[in-house]
């Protein structure tokens, strides 16, 4: 009997902790929607019509739903990447670069490997290989920053930004040069199409949503499991919360920092690989602009919890996907969506505003996202 009672109270505890964690982001969204509505009125629009357009354009039809899922896929992967690093006490601003590295290598394996080998690969080998290589290269790219942090103390914020420059400019160089699509009509910086055997199939005929979306949901579950149920996850979280205590407890802090960055980079690399193998079938300069940065916003909005990341990714996907319908119906510029996103973030980051508006008392410790400069 007593055991039963305890388990009930435990479920209650878990439910309460979920509602507590989700409360501020939810209220931030509500506040941003209200403030966004006021701005729409000020510029002479009809907020109800605008928001209706947004919802219709993103959720109103099977095709709209499929496109929302397509948009959310890279957001989930990249958001998980940033969130995992946060959990390990690291601020990975480099998802954008890691994503580009993953995309370039997946594209390369996708179009060039059969040529190099001289024979066609079966899809069961080629597609996973293209994804795997992209993922690993993203991991290595971020792992360099982890190594610098662990062994030289170089701050990951600076170094991921620098690695972004290197990755994005090298990508541009390659896509304009040796990797450029050689077809005579092409003037764009893009790779050739990847082989059919490297492409991920769509889930339903006639819709673009592909198996990468399912993989993204699976990844979210796996990361949750890794962080909360495994010994490695315990080590990552301990290093993130208190590196001194982690060292005292016998955890190899340097190794854990590097591993956290590698895992984070692998997730960001996957975001790029999946876009190439599942959606675009090539890497094109400029396709990913902003995913890696939006991912930071998503990780913050989702409070670095995998379920939160999935929900925040859906929200961002809804806004991105519904924007054109909103514009069509109301003639309001798509930029309004960026403004709305910024407002949501503002209210999440400056949660004191939301707490003040809704009179919510601060409970417990603040979320530690990163240990700051030289920490």
């Amino acid at each position, binding site marked *: 009997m007593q055991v039963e009672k305890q388990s009930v109270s435990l479920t209650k505890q878990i439910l309460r902790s979920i509602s507590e964690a989700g409360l501020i982001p939810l209220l931030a969204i509500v506040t941003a929607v209200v403030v966004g509505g006021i701005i729409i009125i000020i510029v002479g629009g009809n907020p109800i019509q605008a928001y209706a357009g947004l919802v219709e354009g993103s959720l109103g039809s099977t095709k709209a739903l499929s496109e929302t899922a397509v948009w959310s896929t890279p957001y989930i992967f990249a958001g998980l990447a940033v969130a995992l690093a946060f959990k390990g006490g690291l601020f990975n601003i480099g998802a954008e670069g890691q994503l580009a590295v993953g995309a370039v290598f997946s594209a390369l394996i996708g179009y060039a490997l059969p040529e190099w080998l001289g024979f066609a690969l079966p899809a069961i080998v080629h597609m996973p290989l293209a994804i795997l290589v992209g993922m690993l290269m993203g991991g290595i790219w971020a792992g360099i920053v982890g190594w610098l942090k662990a062994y030289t103390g170089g701050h990951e914020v600076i170094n991921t930004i620098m690695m972004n420059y290197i990755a994005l400019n090298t990508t541009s160089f390659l896509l304009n040069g040796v990797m450029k699509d050689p077809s005579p009509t092409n003037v764009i910086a893009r790779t050739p199409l990847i082989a059919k055997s490297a492409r991920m199939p769509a889930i339903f005929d006639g819709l673009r949503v592909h198996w990468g979306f399912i993989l993204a949901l699976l990844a979210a579950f796996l990361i949750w499991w890794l962080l909360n149920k495994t*010994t490695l996850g*315990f080590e990552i979280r301990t290093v993130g*919360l208190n590196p001194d205590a982690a*060292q*005292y*407890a*016998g955890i190899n802090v340097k190794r854990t920092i590097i591993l956290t960055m590698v895992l984070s980079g692998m997730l960001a690399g996957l975001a790029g690989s999946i876009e190439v193998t599942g959606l675009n079938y090539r890497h094109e300069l400029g396709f990913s602009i902003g995913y890696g940065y939006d991912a930071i916003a998503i990780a913050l909005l989702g409070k670095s919890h995998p379920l939160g990341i999935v929900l925040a990714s859906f929200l961002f996907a809804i806004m991105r996907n519904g924007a054109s319908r909103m514009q069509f119906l109301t003639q309001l510029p798509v930029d309004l969506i960026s403004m709305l996103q910024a407002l949501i973030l503002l209210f999440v980051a400056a949660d004191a505003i939301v707490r003040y508006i809704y009179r919510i008392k601060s409970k417990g*410790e603040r979320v530690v996202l990163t240990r700051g400069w030289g920490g």
Partner: protein
Amino acid sequence: MSESQIVLEAKGVTKQFPGVLANDNVDFDLRKGEIHALLGENGAGKSTLMNLIYGLHHPDKGEVFVNGNHVAIHSPNDSIAAGIGMVHQHFMLIPVFTVAENVMLGDETTKRGSLDHLAVAAKITEISKQYGLDVDPNALVGPLPVGIQQRVEIVKTLYRNAEIVILDEPTAVLTPQEAEDLFRIMRDLTARGVSIIFITHKLKEVLAVADRITVMRAGRVINTVKPSETDSAQLANMMVGRQVILTVDKKDHEAAEEILKVEGLTVRDQRNLETVHNVSFTVRGGEVLGIAGVQGNGQTELSEALTGLRSPISGKVTISGKDLTGKPPRIITEAGLAHIPEDRQRHGLVLSYTVADNMALCDYYQIPFSVRGVIQPKALDENSRKLISAYDVRTPSPFVNAGKLSGGNQQKVIVARELSRNNVKLVVANQPTRGLDVGSIEYIHSEIIKMRDRGVAVLLISAELDEIMALSDRIAVMYRGQIVAIVDSKKTTREQLGLWMAGAHVEPA
């Protein structure tokens, strides 16, 4: 003129912090020329009361009167203007400035736009002579001994014409002899009309120096008494609210084989300064070796080097014959170390983890807590329930975050985790009772003695001489990174240890 004029009075002061009533309708008064001790455990509300008087916090209710006039104190500037000065436990001095520069800081005397060092120095010399403080205004503060730095802080308050001086735990950083000097200075000050509030949790000092003693507990004033009308036991009872045993019950010592052996250990701190020089000692099974010394004489680096948190420059550390010099903490833990770290919140706990997680912080990777890389919540839960009852940890449940527990219970979580490990051969306990309530201190002391009686070697590092003397079988004194003496605890005295702690070369009696 037995009852002199009241210079400071707090009436009905109440201060509520989230979750704690830190001061509950507190009345307190200070008479001209007296030393009024404010006694209480950590968290009793002493510091809150002083911060309210000094203007660092604002009371929710209640009023403060200086010389009979109601004053509104909104910031330390207001209290300084009212003639109140405070010497904090951690000094507020800039080491690269001279005494004169430190004293005038914030209240600079200028002559035609530039600092008037001469006038300031003259005034410091005058104050110094008048009160027997013996402070050189032109000396750099950094190299001065702690006792002198404290006098600089006192000069700072007098320079600002303070007639009421608050001393917050002033003896925590002093040797017994330095403390005696401070008491003499305090008496000189009061003889010249200065009134002193002396905050402490040490019973002996209060009885030695105070004119009146006010005891606080849980935010309330319990009583105000005269030293002649009370004794240690009664004061301790008032502080804790129940009968307290002040001595540790300890059987005679039966030391066995050598467990910890340290030979020629030299360690540098993070500034690359050599803070431990060529230290050698041994600890045998079934004995407590106490390391006495004023804080900051290399004890921190010594314990870090022994527990794997810092690599020594040279020397050798062995546990039961196994060379563990410079090995990482996990290897040393697996060789039989239990480590109660100096800073429980920085090293000992992850405050936002549950009590259950913290109780497996060092063993989480081993069976039964982990099986093939997967954490077993049931094993964590069972382990914590067992330890919570065995070590009397007061927590609502094993799933409460460690940060929500009181300091005493946080320390019990660490003690339970470390001492319950089944292969423990050596306990390194660094400041195991710092800042704890009397009840927790009693409990942790008895657990340490239990380990010793079971044949475990114990290295106890503490700045509290009473703790060292109560628990140790042998006592080593550390001064400027060296062990200057190792003696049998039965064959030494507080005075002798105090001299060693101050660096005097005295042969063991």
